[in-house]
């Protein structure tokens, strides 16, 4: 079982880890099927408290947008796989994560009329 936490801003991955007020936690079975999915609303935005929650929840990987190096290093040190600078809708991002194709810095957002 693989537990992943996505920091949310509406239904997108949040641009800032430290300003996250909502997270999605998904438990993914070895065959890639999502066993459990829940959204938590945090009482306040705090990078320290979010790190603590990530550790206590036993999360294996987190997906977020911008994260300060201090927290990135800390979580990596705690053996949590941090996939940062991700831009996209949480469903699409989770889909890529399940498929093993999600990379740090990946942009999965519709560019509207600016798309080539």
């Amino acid at each position, binding site marked *: 079982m693989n537990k992943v936490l996505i920091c949310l*801003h509406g239904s*997108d991955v*949040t*641009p*800032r*880890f*430290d*300003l996250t007020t909502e997270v999605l936690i998904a438990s993914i079975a070895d065959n890639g099927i999502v066993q459990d999915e829940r959204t938590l609303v945090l009482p306040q935005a705090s990078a320290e408290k979010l790190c603590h929650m990530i550790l206590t929840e036993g999360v294996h990987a987190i997906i977020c*947008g*911008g*994260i*300060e*190096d201090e927290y*990135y*290093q800390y979580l990596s*040190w705690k053996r949590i796989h941090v996939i*940062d*600078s991700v*831009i996209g809708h949480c469903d699409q991002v989770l889909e890529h994560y399940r498929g093993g194709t999600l990379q740090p*810095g990946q*942009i999965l*957002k*519709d*560019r*509207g*009329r*600016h*798309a*080539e």
Partner: protein
Amino acid sequence: MVHRSLPQIAGLFEQSVSLPTLLDEIPLGLAILDRERRIHLINRTLEALTGYTREEARGISCEFILRSNICLEDCPLRQSKPISEPVGIEGNIVNRDRQKIPVCMTFSPVRDHHGKLVGYLETVQDIRLIRTLSSKSGQTFGFGQIIGRSPEMERIYQILPVIAQSDSSVLITGETGSGKDFVAEAIHQASPRAKDPFIKVNCGALPETLLESELFGHQKGAFTGAAENKPGRFRLAHNGTLYLTEIGDLPLALQVKLLTFLDDRIVYPLGGTRGFQVNVRVIAATHRDLEQMVREGRFREDLLFRLNVVRIRLPALRERGDDVRLLLDHFLQSYAGKLKKPIKGFSARALKALLAYPFPGNVRELKNIVEYALTICQEDHIHTRHLPAYLMDPKTVHDREVRESPTRVNEGVSVLKGDDVSALDWSAVERRMILEAMLKAGGRRSKAAAMLGWGRSTLWRKLKEYGIDA
């Protein structure tokens, strides 16, 4: 794929000119947004500030690219009543290098000749320099973020302003944790280039091919996956400073390319035929003995000569005498404020233990120890029981003399017993020490760190550095 032509400005000059080229010359981050706050265009200064290229940013809502607290907390463009006049707000952004940068942003509506809103113009100004200058006014000893009043540091403070005003390449050497990054940034901030970008590249963090593209950029189609043109860090640092940390880890092939750049100041992106003239000051740093590496054929002598125009050797903390006490008090005050704890100081025994400790991880280790102690401590003074356990181990303190020897071999780990130390370089010795400690500690990093006399973060960093997957 459709070729996208660059927006042009017509009627201003005799011939129409490219808008991005014009915006690139403005030393202030600029973003042009449409009515839905999607990015049309960003200039080179904003590319350097955020780490996103204009191709990556195009069509994405600005909050995902700028990643400012203003975007999420108080975006003037999201308010029910649309802005009619430019608005300026101070905030911060987190860029792709994971740095939090204080900025001043302005938001202005753009209207057509009928007064109809067509988009927005955002400016983003890096105000790190202003913040540094204002924080320096209350500080009587130090330079930039560097603190210390020992004679060794005084000598460095005296030469830093002179070095900052020159435009020569600088080589900073010193043990891990001695503050090389802070010195590099302080030189940039005190130099005439302070308003322009300070771009840091860790030469040891990326494989050779990626590093080449990261430094020098690439042309679209140069290799599989090169879907867009990438300017590279040298071009992003145009008019500013490029800081190459861990220069000793730069592969030989790239050493030649760097040498060529230092000679003619032209950057040739991967897969490109055209060179770009770039005005960049290079500051390099390493904890390695480059002269020794030259003797071993692992570092080019001519590159060493080019970089070694000005050399700053940062003393290890154990050579800085009373600075240990000063730094202990400084970080105590700093973390007590941050963690909102009313801790007044260290007990006599705790202070004695700290002053007797050799700090092989230098200022970084000292800072981590103080942070740890403050986190643990629930009283008004830090006692020995609040300090990391390895600090109170008499063997660790006894090892001080051993660490001060040229090879700094830690007796707590017996890896070298029976080995011919002289046949190994320091990296090999250190790597073997780590492996031995990890083995003895049964894979437990905290215990291994204690055996080595390091903080856990130092051990973690070293494991990463040597590619040990523990």
